[in-house]
């Protein structure tokens, strides 16, 4: 309504005027709604792409159709229309996550640089998610396929996303996983990825998300990061320690996550894996671990007595056992023997048992000092038991025997007497014809050391010869005479001590 004139020349009907106003307001609502519906229908793909994908997920024919239309989807993705770009990204990312991802077709359609472009601030979170997922899937492909991702500059964009201040857990989780998948391709790839300074944002991401409340999405983000961190640490040719030692403080925090079960357990497991890699090196390297104050917790984690965490820790313990005495002592002070012995006595997992035995082996192979500590910790009876127990894999028996034979090899006469008294000759004889050459050799060497000790201790009559004979030891040694490596040693033993 407009009051142009005080006097209405046209005798404008006011009733009409009100009606007109209401009519216009309805017409504008109609126009808006009509356009809105058209907009939704026209951009059906955009608004329904998630549902389309969901529907297609279990339907091979629908998936095949989507495969066939990759060229169209790719041209949508490269068009100027953002909703089409979005829908196309979603579709391709879905296809790439199927069982037989059409990675080469997608690469050939030329969309990879666009996926990278969509990681720009300009694009929506969901769009970025689909793009990262697609790049992740390609990065998991063959080496050649992963090269394409790197070639188009995905890594710097990934790092930018990791650093962004927004709390987009899911996106960062995917980015961390994608970086991990690239690094996992080969040590060269890993070093290339690390060269961009990827470690720092990854660590700070972990650092920033360790405070409660531990929401599920936060935990899964941590898991992806810890997994990638583990990939960074591993490799046949390990990365230089200096490149990754900065991870130690975070790793310490990760192994302290409680309770180490479920996804948190997996994070802890990754951290333990990292430590097992990091501990596999020089005494200096081991010292860095010790300085990072991880030992107490690691020993405590052995209390879990089972699972991957224990295995990784056992590997670390084994590595530290290769360090200098003071380093070993730290573990001992934290009660490592108690834990190891508990595993030996109550453990049921063969793999864990083997790793435990092999860690102890490392120690028994060192010197009398360490052997004494093992003996003092009452570990020998446990090893003896395991070396004869037939309820585990046969390798467990062998490894236990190895640990014993190492002790026998390196032990003092006194210690050997202790070992023999405990019943150690039986197992050594039992496993001397072991198909595993290492075990076989060690047992032979162990027996040799026992016989030698017996010779000295019992100048008149080597009591140990009799015990070995009781176990048909010499009969078994006889059979080793033809062995190319140890045949000679066997022969000499027979000649010297054989009855």
């Amino acid at each position: 309504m407009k009051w142009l004139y005080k006097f209405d020349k046209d005798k404008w009907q006011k009733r009409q005027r009100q009606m007109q106003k209401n009519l216009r307001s309805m017409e504008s609502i109609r126009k808006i709604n009509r356009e809105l519906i058209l907009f939704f229908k026209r951009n059906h793909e955009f608004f329904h792409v998630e549902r389309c994908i969901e529907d297609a997920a279990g339907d091979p024919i629908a998936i095949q159709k989507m495969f066939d239309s990759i060229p169209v989807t790719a041209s949508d993705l490269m068009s100027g229309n953002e909703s089409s770009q979005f829908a196309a990204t979603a579709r391709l990312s879905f296809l790439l996550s199927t069982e037989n991802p059409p990675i080469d077709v997608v690469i050939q359609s030329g969309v990879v640089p666009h996926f990278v472009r969509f990681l720009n601030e300009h694009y929506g979170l969901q769009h970025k998610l689909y793009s990262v997922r697609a790049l992740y899937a390609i990065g998991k492909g063959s080496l050649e396929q992963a090269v394409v991702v790197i070639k188009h500059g995905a890594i710097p964009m990934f790092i930018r996303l990791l650093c962004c201040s927004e709390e987009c857990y899911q996106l960062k989780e995917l980015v961390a996983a994608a970086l991990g998948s690239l690094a996992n391709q080969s040590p060269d790839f890993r070093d290339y990825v690390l060269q961009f300074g990827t470690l720092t944002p990854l660590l700070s991401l972990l650092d920033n998300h360790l405070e409660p409340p531990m929401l599920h999405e936060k935990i899964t983000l941590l898991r992806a990061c810890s997994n990638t961190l583990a990939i960074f640490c591993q490799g046949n040719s390990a990365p230089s320690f200096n490149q990754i030692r900065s991870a130690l403080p975070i790793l310490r925090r990760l192994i302290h996550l409680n309770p180490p079960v479920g996804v948190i357990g997996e994070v802890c497991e990754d951290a333990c894996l990292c430590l097992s890699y990091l501990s596999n090196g020089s005494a200096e390297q081991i010292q860095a671990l010790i300085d990072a104050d991880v030992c107490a917790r690691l020993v405590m984690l052995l209390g879990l007595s089972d699972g991957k965490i224990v295995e990784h820790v056992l590997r670390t313990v084994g590595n530290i056992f290769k360090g200098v005495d003071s380093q070993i002592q730290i573990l001992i002070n934290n009660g490592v023997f108690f834990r190891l012995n508990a595993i030996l006595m109550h453990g049921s997992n063969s793999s864990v048992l083997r790793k435990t035995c092999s860690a102890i082996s490392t120690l028994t192979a060192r010197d009398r000092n360490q052997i004494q500590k093992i003996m003092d910790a009452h570990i020998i009876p446990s090893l003896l038991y395991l070396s004869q127990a037939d309820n585990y894999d046969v390798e467990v028996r062998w490894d236990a025997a190895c640990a014993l034979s190492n002790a026998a090899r390196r032990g003092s006469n006194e210690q050997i007497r202790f070992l023999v008294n405990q019943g150690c000759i039986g197992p050594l004889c039992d496993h001397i014809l072991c198909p595993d050459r290492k075990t076989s050799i060690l047992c032979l060497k162990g027996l040799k050391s026992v016989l030698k000790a017996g010779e000295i201790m019992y100048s008149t009559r080597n009591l140990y010869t009799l015990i070995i004979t009781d176990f048909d030891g010499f009969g078994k040694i006889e059979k080793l005479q033809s062995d190319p490596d140890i045949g000679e040693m066997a022969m000499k033993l027979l000649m010297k001590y054989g009855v």
Partner: protein
Amino acid sequence: MEVTQVLFNAQSIDGTVRKNAEESLKQFQEQNLPGFLLSLSGELANEEKPIETRKLAGLILKNALDAKEQHRKFELVQRWLSLDATAKSQIKACLLQTLSSPVSDARSTASQVIAKVAGIELPHKQWPELIGSLLSNVHQLPAQAKQATLETLGYLCEEVSPDVIDQDQVNKILTAVVQGMSSSEGNTDVRLAATRALYNALGFAQANFSNDMERDYIMRVVCEATLSPEVRIRQAAFECLVSISSTYYEKLAPYIQDIFNITAKAVREDEEPVALQAIEFWSSICDEEIDILEEYGGDFTGDSDIPCFYFIKQALPALVPMLLETLLKQEEDQDQDEGAWNIAMAGGTCLGLVARTVGDDIVPLVVPFIEENISKPDWRQREAATYAFGSILEGPSPEKLIPLVNVALTFMLSALTKDPNSHVKDTTAWTLGRIFEFLHGSVVDSPIISQANCQQIITVLLQSMKDTPNVAEKACGALYFLAQGYEEMGPSSPLTPFFQEIVQSLLTVTHREDASESRLRTAAYETLNEVVRCSTDETAPLVLQLVPVIMMELHNTLEGQKLSSDEREKQSELQGLLCGCLQVIIQKLGASEPTKYVFMQYADQIMGLFLRVFACRSATVHEEAMLAIGALAYATGADFAKYMPEFYRYLEMGLQNFEEYQVCAVTVGVVGDISRALEEKIVPYCDGIMTQLLKNLSSNQLHRSVKPPIFSCFGDIALAVGEYFEKYLMWAMSALQSAAELSTHIAGDDELVEYTNSLRNGILEAYSGIFQGFKNSPKTQLLIPYAPHILQFLDGIYMEKDMDDVVMKTAIGVLGDLADTLGSHAGSMIQQSVSSKDFLNECLSSEDLMIKESAEWAKLAISRAISV
């Protein structure tokens, strides 16, 4: 048959006689049309017949050639054209002969009939000798015949469009007319007829006005005629000047000084009908200059076709005092008389237009007049001063006006309560309304209303609503603009503390015994609606409380006993106001989820009331109730389905109402609303709706303005029901196709261009809806056969180069929809179309963002369709 007697009887006071006569006339007409028309023309021409029957014969003849309704007119034209040529020439001879009759009524009737025949025949290149024979001996004719000839020429120019008459004949007509007007013509009737004829012939004089000599001559004659001793000639001459001012604005410069002198004299001294036309001349110049300046302002790069001569600006120092003088010539009780139009009213209106034309320049010329008169004891002076102030509030800049308003506001508020004169109060309230309309709201930087005076303003306005109806009505209007100014001012409105009081006062006004005077009740509801519309979330609970109140009011209108037709009219009008109010409330509360949720508890009852409003009438449906139901449908969404079984019959009734085409149009719109609300739940009603809509389209009785919405409605339904539309596809497509063919080319005036564009838009919306409705269904291939024609239609309107932006946007969208839905099936077809290249490119580079966006989408859809 003795026609004279029948015609005589047809005017009898005795009803039976009259009815019989009318019946036999009708029979005669149906049985033998040529004979019927021939005897009527014979009667008219016959000098021996009584004047009454001659006049009636002429009138019936005229009605046999023309009608108000488009379709009836078309029928009559076709019938005349197919009539036997001999009969027609006999009839025409009779008519021409009558022009020389001594009986003035017979001549005048014949003039009108001749013009009607000419209106039919000249565009068909028939009756080429007419103008020649009219003009052949005009100089030798006796005065009466001359006058009749000039009158005929005038009617003729009114009846036919300029392009059907050769310039040669135009020259002859103008020569005869202007000679008839000149002071040398001794006969007043001839001169008057000539002056009135010129008024109609001005549209033909394009070429003559471009010729300096001819134009000078015409202008001189017109100006001379304004000085004629005969008042009717002076009035007719000023009417010519008014018409010239709008048709030949750009030719006026040499004459404007003289015209000013003539008009000023007329305004001051002449009789009112003449003075009103003299003022109208300046109002008309204002209209022209406002349009031109608006075009200047709208687009600096493209100048208006016509330059502005700033006549008003130049005349300002003399024009404004002249207009201010007129303001003092009020009549007593003019505010109560709804039909009043006098020199003071015309002067104020013109002053308002002058203010809009020149802006700030008018302020110093008017302020002294206001200051001098505003406190005078004579009410005329106070009223004139207030009126002058109110008139100049639109046009000048807020910077110029706000200091004045800040001073005046308190004075005005006090005058509105204390002035003893009702005229002064009326104009004061109006002026306050104008102040709020133009100087209050988010567009103005320095607010004139503060927390301090807001309370006072509202108190005064609510007080004035108890004044006489005319004052109360203006107070409602002022409140309307006060509320409007606070629209979208944020989450909190200064009116919130007064909301309850305002609503209560407005409701009280609607219950005043005298609320039907000065359309007071209507104004009160209109203001209530605006107050609700502009309210904020703070007052949402109060708006909710209003729902049962208005529902009760509506309920009360339904309680009436047997009503007289007058009472029924009043009841219906009140129901209209209440339904309109409910519509506004529904839209307001439906706009946000929490309020909608609470409102929904009333939905069933409100719908029940609307249905009862419908039930009050038998033949037609209530427009306002229908529209409010559309609003309700958006609020209820798919739940509206529960009302459909009862509501459907009224929907159908509305669609069937051809006579009241607005009712039909409103109902068509509501079908769209309901389709959107119900989606596929509308399917059970589609057969009935589509059948009726198709029937409407094929009828030539339906007003053309309803056709575009019907087509849009096809689109709405198709979008709602998807592939289910298959049932109607063939019929809908055929209706669309024939309308599309008609609307590709436009030949006609601006109004027709506008209509054609709205028709195109409706057709295109239908296509979009159908394509998008069928998308992703297994039945898309059903649409393939229609694609070539649709593409042809798009190419066609593109090549015509006369579509507006809305059509452009919709059209390019249809191109995308076609590609989107048909995909590879239409790939090559699309590539061959002009639309997919030139048209698309033009749209892609459009500055209109909506067009561009549509085009981007179409481009994508096409690239997808052709890449497969």
